[in-house]
């Protein structure tokens, strides 16, 4: 039973009832990222100046390439949700806001797919 006045729903006031999914996606991806980020920072520091052959060998390790795929998926899922909220909070021009929200979804979907293909290629193609 709800105590909310149906008129409030009709006027579009209050919660749209789908916020939890967004909130949970952000938290779940945060946990994955929190576990792997120390390794990523270590990897950046240790391997950022390495040559091609050394890096290629690293990705041949299934644990490393597997963790990398998990990381980029969580990363872009998290980034897309985070940027969505930033745009919702600060951009109030209707046309611009919609354009940015659509652009964020397209760019970060593309980024995730491209990153996964690149890692798979590094891992599998000799």
């Amino acid at each position: 039973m709800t105590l909310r006045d149906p008129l409030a729903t009709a006027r579009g006031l209050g919660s749209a009832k789908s916020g939890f999914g967004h909130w949970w996606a952000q938290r779940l991806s945060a946990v994955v990222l929190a576990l792997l980020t120390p390794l990523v920072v270590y990897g950046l520091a240790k391997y950022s100046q390495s040559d091609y052959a050394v890096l290629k060998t690293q990705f041949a390790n299934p644990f490393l390439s597997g963790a990398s795929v998990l990381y980029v998926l969580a990363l872009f899922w998290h980034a897309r949700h985070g940027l969505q909220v930033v745009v919702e909070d600060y951009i109030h021009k209707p046309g611009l806001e919609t354009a940015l929200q659509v652009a964020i979804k397209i760019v970060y979907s593309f980024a995730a797919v491209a990153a996964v293909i690149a890692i798979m290629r590094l891992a599998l193609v000799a």
Partner: protein
Amino acid sequence: MSQKRPMSPFMIGPYYRPQITSMMSIMHRATGVVLALGSLALVWVLVSLSMGEQAFAVVRACLASPVGMLALVVFSFCLMYHLFNGVRHLFWDGGKGFDIPTVYRSGYAVVVLSLLSTAAVWWFAVSTGGAP
């Protein structure tokens, strides 16, 4: 939807004194935006690497340049800050650490930990020679 509802003033501006709590909150967003944009550069690195040694040569030159190295250290710091402050947020989500003294203590802890851990990881990686 079209109604003009009252809004509280934005935290940055003439209305509020700067506080560690609000500064850390906006820093969480700022580092988040930097990381979101910087992670697109990460895709460029991965894609170039996957296309072979010749394509990767351009990336390698960028990473070895002073600007590239500075970007790497800044990106690492943003990762560490967003990580530690993100864990702080997860505790709040669980309803823990909300009293003001704890909020301030955890805030200072995040600032110190993110600076120290970034420095420690880079120091360790560089002093052990990095990888060729």
